[in-house]
């Protein structure tokens, strides 16, 4: 990864950082962690071309790039960076494991204005945690240290939406963190970095699901989770009027 001017050259792709507008180098944080992965760019998802967002789109009040990749253990790992109305930077990494693996889905979302950084971070479990406490112990409890460290950040609060709370893990964090204090900004960047690094480590160690029954269950649950995200994603809903259905359909395909 190289930073050149205000752009990042990442896996032979050029991504705008928007740091020149006073936003935090969140994209650099994400890309640094992903730099070592073998990423294969995707051009189509579910039979549909996603070039509209892959190559970057510019509309009045909306500039965005969505880069979905395939990795050895993920059917899709997407990094995105958008700027809305020149005022809001949104950046995210979302990773969905392939059907052979049951590791949790990674969701890291960053939304920044002049005064606030809104964050959502989670490892969305692909099983019912009450019935599979071994899953929680293996994939989620390693987050405890980070969750404990960041849960007291100012502005942290339960997520507003029941549809997301029902899917999220015991280690999700969300909130609107004020930027007045430099310490808060650093902590938000570090939070993203820590959740991403640990997930990548779990991904490296993940073994294929050994039995077909569990595989089928995980696949069904993963499909439900993606459907719920696609139907309810608040960012997509609020952008629909501004950018139109064509872009939103591709955005949701790239993300979930």
């Amino acid at each position, binding site marked *: 990864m190289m930073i050149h001017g205000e752009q990042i050259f990442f896996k032979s792709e050029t991504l705008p950082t928007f740091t020149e507008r006073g936003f935090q180098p969140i994209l650099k944080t994400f890309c640094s962690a992903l730099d070592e992965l073998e990423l294969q760019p995707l051009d189509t998802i579910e039979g549909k071309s996603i070039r509209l967002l892959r190559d970057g789109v510019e509309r009045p009040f909306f500039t965005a790039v969505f880069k979905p990749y395939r990795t050895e253990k993920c059917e899709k790992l997407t990094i995105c960076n958008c700027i809305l109305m020149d005022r809001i930077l949104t950046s995210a990494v979302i990773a969905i494991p392939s059907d052979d693996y049951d590791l949790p889905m990674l969701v890291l979302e960053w939304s920044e204005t002049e005064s606030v950084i809104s964050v959502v971070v989670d490892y969305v479990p692909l099983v019912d945690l009450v*019935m599979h406490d071994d899953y929680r112990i293996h994939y989620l409890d390693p987050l405890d240290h980070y969750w404990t460290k960041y849960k007291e950040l100012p502005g942290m609060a339960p997520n507003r939406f*029941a549809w997301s709370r029902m899917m999220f893990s*015991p280690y999700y964090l969300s909130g609107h963190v004020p930027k007045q204090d430099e310490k808060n900004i650093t902590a938000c960047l570090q939070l993203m970095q820590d959740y991403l690094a640990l997930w990548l480590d779990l991904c490296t160690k993940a073994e294929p699901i050994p039995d077909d029954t569990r595989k089928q269950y995980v696949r069904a649950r993963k499909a439900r989770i993606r459907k719920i995200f696609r139907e309810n994603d608040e960012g997509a809903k609020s952008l629909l009027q501004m950018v139109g259905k064509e872009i939103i359909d591709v955005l949701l395909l790239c993300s979930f």
Partner: protein
Amino acid sequence: MSTVKFEMNLALPVLEDFQPLQLPEACWKILQNCDLEPLEEFEGINIAENREKVKEKMEEMDSSMVMHYFQSEKIEKLCLGWTVIMKSIVVTMFSGWPRNDYDFPASPMDLVESEKHVYIGADLIPLTDIVINDWYREKYLDGFEPLYKQYLDLSDPTPNPMNWFRALSSPYVISGRPDVGQNRGTVKRAAECFTAYIRYWMKEIVAKAEPMKDPAHKKYVNRKKAKIRDEFRRKDPGGPPLVMSLGKELAWETVKLIF
């Protein structure tokens, strides 16, 4: 099952440090006309004998505990009662569990009140995988959303520190330690919230429940209920103080009755 009308004395004693809310009585007012029958035995534990042993032990510790257990056509066990610890902390407990033919959410809750602090834990815990079965959430839980939002400020901004608790919670859990507030106003709101959960559970959830028909669903629900119960029995933070007061064996017996 016949309907038995009976009087219930759940009045809390007068305390020196503060005047606790008569929350157990308020809860009973919601339940008293709900066709409940006293439960006499559960998992081989004789409830009258347990009550006597607990009373004796609690008195030795300058504490007291009054627990009542009920059942109904759909409810396997409903527990309502209170504990006064060292004459300074009042714990109101409620827990409701469906019979094995029903899949409605379980509702173990408590409200802890002292002179300076209040804690509320209230939830409607799903007995199925609500990510897969969205009908369950729609049928039993989503109607609660307006009440949840009304009382969400009672929840801590930071989630409950117990990971096992967060793992089994519904999207509508309230868990928090708010300040008692001016004139103990927040304690009163917490008590209102507590009774709102009970009222909703009884009047909207239990009332709507029908016996399960799908054997696979039934098997899952009963396994999950057993797991949830086991988590509360082994990990609820009320356990260790109970062991100190009652000794290990009697505490375990009592925890099995509560959850």
